[in-house]
């Protein structure tokens, strides 16, 4: 029997199954929490940090990723405060400076209200979201790729840099990678990166309906859970 808990997101009360994550609940009930590394039915890692929310405990709020936060009885979540918006904008800015050659990440940056990028562009083609690693490990049980190294040298690689014997050639790692769709104007060369921002008109409606998912076209680049 499924047990239910009641919780609050942005003031609205929900009765939700025990064990689900805050992000899943928000998506289910049409609250827009931008996210990138979350893939439905795959374990969450909290790698992209975009889905941060404020979790209010006894009057104090704690900022944490909603994908790794499990629902609890009487939980109070704020997903769209000024503080969260500011932090989220900064995170999106960092992501776009790390990998500007991705429609998904450019879309996210627009969605989070990034207007200028204050950081130098790295153009690294990977933001270590771990989507490929998790789909390979969990859905396909192949374990052909994984994280290698640590800190700034962390990379997604197969063991010893050669194609893994356990690879099933499913291609799902490529399907889920946010880097596979380049910005509409084509890939940017190193030194010529910019913030795309051409889809800003998509935000018109989003701004009039704060914190609600309006099915904006900005999620298509990375299979936002609504698409």
């Amino acid at each position: 029997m499924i047990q239910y808990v009641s919780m609050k997101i942005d003031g609205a009360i929900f009765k939700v199954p025990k064990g689900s994550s805050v992000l899943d609940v928000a998506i289910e009930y049409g609250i827009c929490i931008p996210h990138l590394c979350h893939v439905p039915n795959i374990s969450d890692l909290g790698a992209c940090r975009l889905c941060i929310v404020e979790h209010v405990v006894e009057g104090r709020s704690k900022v944490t990723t909603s994908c790794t936060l499990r629902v609890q009885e009487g939980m109070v979540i704020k997903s769209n405060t000024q503080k969260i918006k500011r932090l989220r904008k900064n995170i999106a800015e960092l992501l776009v400076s790390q990998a500007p050659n991705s429609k998904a990440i450019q879309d996210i940056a627009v969605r989070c209200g990034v207007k200028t990028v204050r950081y130098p562009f790295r153009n690294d083609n990977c933001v270590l979201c771990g989507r490929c690693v998790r789909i390979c490990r969990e859905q396909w049980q192949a374990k052909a790729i994984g994280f290698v190294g640590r800190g700034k040298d962390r990379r997604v690689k197969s063991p010893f840099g050669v194609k893994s014997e356990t690879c099933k050639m499913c291609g799902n790692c490529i399907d889920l990678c946010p880097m596979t769709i380049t910005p509409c104007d084509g890939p940017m060369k190193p030194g010529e990166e910019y913030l795309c921002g051409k889809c800003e008109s998509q935000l018109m409606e989003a701004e009039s309906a704060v914190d609600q998912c309006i099915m904006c076209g900005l999620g298509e680049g990375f299979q936002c859970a609504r698409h």
Partner: protein
Amino acid sequence: MQPQPLETLLEGRRSQPHQLIEVLQDVQAQYGYISEEAIRTISKELGVPLVDVYSVVSFYKAFHLNPRGKNVITMCTGTACHVRGAKLLLNQAISQLGVQPGDMTDDKLFTIEHVNCLGACALGPVVTENGSSHHHMSPGKLRKLIDALRARDEKPEQEADHA
């Protein structure tokens, strides 16, 4: 001393994934590095996916994927040592041995490494050679140290050649 074969190290630990780090530590201690072959064997015997063994080995600084020389010279490049000229020491070692940090010299005698701090900042610049520390190093002292180590290790081979 001959290193123990991998079979002996795996004795009593097969099919126990939680023993991974212990086995890797033993292999590292016995062979000085962890070879691709060893990683494949460990993965098969312990029942840990190959990619997991590989990421653990690449994560920890204590494990090495490439063979290391007989003498490992570690430079401290922490703040205090850096200020007192650790860069000069590193350059001295690189130019004297002709290898980059992390690589082994062709005669398999030396490997240079740099670490972020050895925890003896008041004694800097610090250099450790095979586990023993040398304080207040200078490029000249380091040159003599490397020469002494080379002389010590090359001698037995020459004697063997004569005989």
